[in-house]
């Protein structure tokens, strides 16, 4: 389904602030698989997601989606295959546009845009139906500006937008991190539901080990730009957060000192 082969990416090469973010990331994700990605700050998890979405191009290595080499395609060219929800609720939607206009943009993700009306009556009915599923009362606020919604509501709409058109891969970049615990929980449950309904191949970056083990069916840990841990199935089902920490120490042969990873 998706293969990442030997991805390398260095920021600011040849300068004092040179930062090798990816140092040979290899990952093979099967169709319909839900992978959670963890790692400390600077481990390369966001860079990996940006590399998959095309927001940045890797220095070397190959990215295959459905056997198609997309390594050199940029973000808008990959949009038909890759849907994305950002960490910042402001980033994934247009606050100046209405809810229905945002959904209309997502409805045409990866397609040619012509001179036909963007928000038609049939689409409006469809949007209303989908929004109703969220149970947030947004189905009555189609023409409201996106900027009027709360962070949680915006992330919920972002998820809806990501699932509006079939895509090969859904990328979730700490999309609950900016929300309060209750809203985060709601968005997470919604994520699980939408992913299951649409049978999406999903990669979710999270800062919480708890979340990483609870959601999805496979967990990958990145460290210093490489995949250092990859657990799934029985082995993963039996794991708890301390086990994950222990394994991490074993793999790296060093004591984990980053508090950020222990949180959650």
């Amino acid at each position: 389904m998706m293969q990442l082969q030997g991805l390398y990416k260095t920021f600011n090469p040849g300068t004092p602030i040179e930062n090798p973010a990816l140092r040979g990331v290899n990952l093979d994700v099967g169709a319909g698989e839900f992978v959670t990605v963890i790692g400390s700050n600077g481990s390369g998890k966001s860079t990996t997601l940006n590399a998959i979405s095309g927001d940045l191009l890797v220095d070397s290595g190959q990215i295959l989606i459905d056997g198609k080499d997309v390594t050199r395609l940029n973000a808008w060219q990959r949009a038909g295959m890759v849907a994305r929800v950002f960490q910042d609720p402001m980033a994934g939607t247009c606050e100046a546009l209405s809810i229905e206009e945002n959904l209309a943009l997502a409805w045409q993700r990866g397609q040619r845009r012509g001179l036909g009306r963007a928000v038609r009556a049939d689409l409006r009915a469809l949007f209303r139906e989908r929004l109703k599923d969220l149970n947030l009362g947004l189905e009555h606020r189609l023409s409201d500006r996106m900027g009027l919604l709360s962070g949680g509501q915006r992330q919920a709409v972002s998820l809806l937008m990501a699932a509006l058109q079939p895509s090969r891969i859904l990328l979730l970049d700490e999309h609950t991190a900016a929300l309060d615990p209750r809203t985060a929980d709601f968005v997470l449950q919604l994520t699980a539901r939408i992913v299951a309904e649409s049978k999406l191949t999903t990669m979710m970056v999270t800062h919480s080990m708890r979340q990483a083990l609870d959601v999805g069916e496979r967990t990958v840990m990145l460290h210093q730009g490489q995949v250092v841990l990859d657990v799934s199935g029985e082995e993963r089902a039996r794991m708890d957060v301390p086990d994950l920490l222990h394994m991490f120490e074993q793999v790296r042969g060093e004591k984990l000192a980053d508090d950020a990873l222990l949180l959650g």
Partner: protein
Amino acid sequence: MSMLSFMGALEIGLIFALVALGVWISFRVLDFPDLTADGSFPLGGAVAAVLIVMGYNPWLACVAAMVAGAAAGLLTGWLNVRLGILQLLASILTMIALYSINLRIMGAPNVPLLGEATVFSPFLGDNDSYWMQPLVLLVIILLVKLVLDWFFASQMGLALRATGANPRMARSQGIPTGRVVMGGMALSNALIALGGALYVQTQGGADVSMGLGTIVIGLAAVIIGETLMPSRSLFVITLATVVGAVLYRLFIALALEADFIGLKAQDLNLITAVLVAIALVLPRFKARWRKKPAKAAGPVAGGRS
């Protein structure tokens, strides 16, 4: 104000409504501070004047002017998108280059159009030009406004608005933002050049220096429109822009006509700058006035600031 000078102000105001709509697209929709207007307005005038003098149909001359303006906008967009030159600087480069190009096109610092057939000629009788010209312009401008309203409600138009509002999100929805910016800049400057083409046909000729301050007037019109008719509806926003352009010219005409102030025609640019400065600052003061009573309402209302 006499009827004649009122109609004159209305006429120029309507022409500058096209400029204002173009400026609105670059500054407001695309969030692209674009000074190309000072070059694309006389470019449109130069192309139209030269073609009309050569005997071409004046409508065809207008279309040619729009194409030329679109090319100018495309150049600015390209300098920014593909070569990574800062938006403002890219547009200044195009503007400066256009000064030479306009002189080349005209072959002289000015091209008179006295006695030539213009787009207004078929509508003009012997003595009614003072109200017929503004009427023809009004029809043209309203048509342009409605076409823009329709365009911005289309899939392409929505993509353009998303590109200006949140380019990263637009890209993740598969919108080629670079191309969209170039296309939007072409559209913006095509409208401004059309304004230039109509301007020379009402003023009896093209002049190389006629573009001076175009961008400031366009921006003034946009801001006046926004201040007087704040709205989120596209239909109202484009209408407000047109109204702002007309009102602006009427203000100027009034300021120049009021003898007791002692202003003369040569003070035009100074008045423009002052008016734009006031229009730019006004919304901020308005917000401050609004905040004050909220603070007075008590600690609950004031808690967030």
